């Protein structure tokens, strides 16, 4: 699915990722954890194509394509989805029309007709119900006035609607209460399949109790310093990163 080799990334001339290499095969779930400032979010944003993150060297192969040559739009259309740690508010644009627009962009890329209003409403109701999101939220502006938890649910809803091949969740668990965390984990577990990969970036390890990863990586100074299976998360939870 995705192969990262010797990746070096800087932000505002500060080197964040140091020679990072990581391979995520199709169907695998990887968790990346580590202390504050270790570069966890940098890997998420670099893969999604955030122009603030400058790739100095290295390569990223995504389904046999050079990911680093693609614009963020193309990365998304090719099946990469980043759930933001801090989702952006877009005043003046209703959530429903926004969701329909992004869905139709993907449908167009797949050679499908735009989804009609009635069919979209049905789909939106079905997906929102899974996350216990009231439909009223979709007549509000995108993320505007949403609580932290509502914003995160809206990220997971977009993820579910767009049906990506590779999901990168950047601290999606932060700001969620226990019930919302469980709901989010349920949706993610439902999306888990042999054809889809996940990279879960998390500062806290509670989410990993619900979504058992195949691999856990500990980040420090922009590098993976230790990898293991899901039991590594339990160990860190007890002993810390030191």
């Amino acid at each position, binding site marked *: 699915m995705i192969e990262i080799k010797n990746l070096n990334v800087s932000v505002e001339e500060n080197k964040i990722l140091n020679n990072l290499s990581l391979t995520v095969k199709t169907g695998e779930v990887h968790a990346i954890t580590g202390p504050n400032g270790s570069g966890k979010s940098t890997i998420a944003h670099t893969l999604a194509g955030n122009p603030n993150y400058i790739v100095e060297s290295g390569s990223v192969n995504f389904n046999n394509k050079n990911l680093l040559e693609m614009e963020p739009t193309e990365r*998304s259309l090719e099946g990469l989805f*980043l759930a933001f740690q801090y989702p952006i508010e*877009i005043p003046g644009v209703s959530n429903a029309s926004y969701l329909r*627009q992004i869905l139709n*962009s993907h449908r167009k890329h797949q050679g499908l007709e735009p989804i009609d209003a009635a069919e979209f409403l049905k789909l939106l109701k079905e997906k929102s119900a899974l996350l216990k999101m009231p439909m009223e939220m979709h007549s509000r502006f995108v993320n505007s006035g949403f609580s932290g938890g509502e914003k995160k649910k809206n990220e997971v809803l977009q993820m579910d609607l767009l049906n990506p091949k590779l999901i990168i969740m950047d601290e999606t668990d932060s700001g969620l209460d226990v019930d919302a965390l469980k709901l989010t984990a349920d949706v993610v577990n439902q999306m888990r399949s042999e054809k889809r990969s996940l990279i879960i970036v998390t500062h806290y390890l509670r989410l990993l109790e619900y979504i058992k990863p195949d691999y856990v990586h500990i980040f420090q100074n922009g590098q993976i310093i230790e990898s293991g299976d899901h039991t590594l998360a339990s160990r860190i939870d007890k002993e810390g990163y030191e």
Partner: protein
Amino acid sequence: MNKNISSIAFKDNNLIIKNSSNSIKIEKSINFDKDNELHIDVSPADQTQRIVLDVDTHDDETFNLKIFLKINENAKLEFLDESTYKGNSNFELITKLEKNACLESYKLNKFNKNKINNFYHDCSLLESSSFKDYIFSNGSKENLNRTTINLNDINSSYLGSGVAISDSTNSNNVVEIRHNAKSSTSDCFFKTVARGNSTISFDGTIFVDNHCSKTISNQVSKGLLIGKESKINLVPKLEIYNDDVQCSHGAASGQPDAKTLFYLTSRGISKTEAEDLYIKGFLSEFFDTIDNAQMMTKAKEYISLNN
């Protein structure tokens, strides 16, 4: 022409008058003199009366029009100009609002980017009269919108909003609001989106005379630079000669927020579509000021077509 007119429209030099039941009948043709000067007197009616100006000018001639509009005591009028000016144009509007008169004006014009188009509006308001003014423009080679508001009597009010959406066109917007009587209010709101190598300017003056206590006046201008070569100049000016007033002004311009554009493109929409959504959000604040649902729809359509 001053009794119970619900609307007037010009088409092929004919004056079209709509009666109150909204059916259309052509009452007479007008042969404009060379100055195209027209005097309209509006008297009170059971319902709001409306003037519709919908001309489609030729690109090889200059269209000149001057309208003197008097809105008598207690009369209400909607003025809608949806003209397409393919050629040069000079439109001068002189309005007088008597006591308790109301005017709502909507200009949703389309201009040719190679032409010169001027609009001058001088409006005087008497006691408790009110004027709501909405001007939409897509700019042209030289596009001037100059509005002078004279709040000449107690409790007169002005709400003015302008939107200039340009794509390698220019637009010069000048609004002067003169508070010449006490307890008058004004609210002026200007937004512009500049694409390509457009140059947009807004020059807004609030003048409060020394005897005009209890004046309330606010002015906000905001610009969004989409084109790398585009320029926006926002110049707010206050001339206040009385201490017992509430006045404010603010001006801000800049490029779209990079984080927002990245968020949108990371969802699979193109950069252009992301910018369009951003602009939609930027201008949406403007719609909150339009009470009239039909006009709000027209305004949204205008922005959608010119965005």
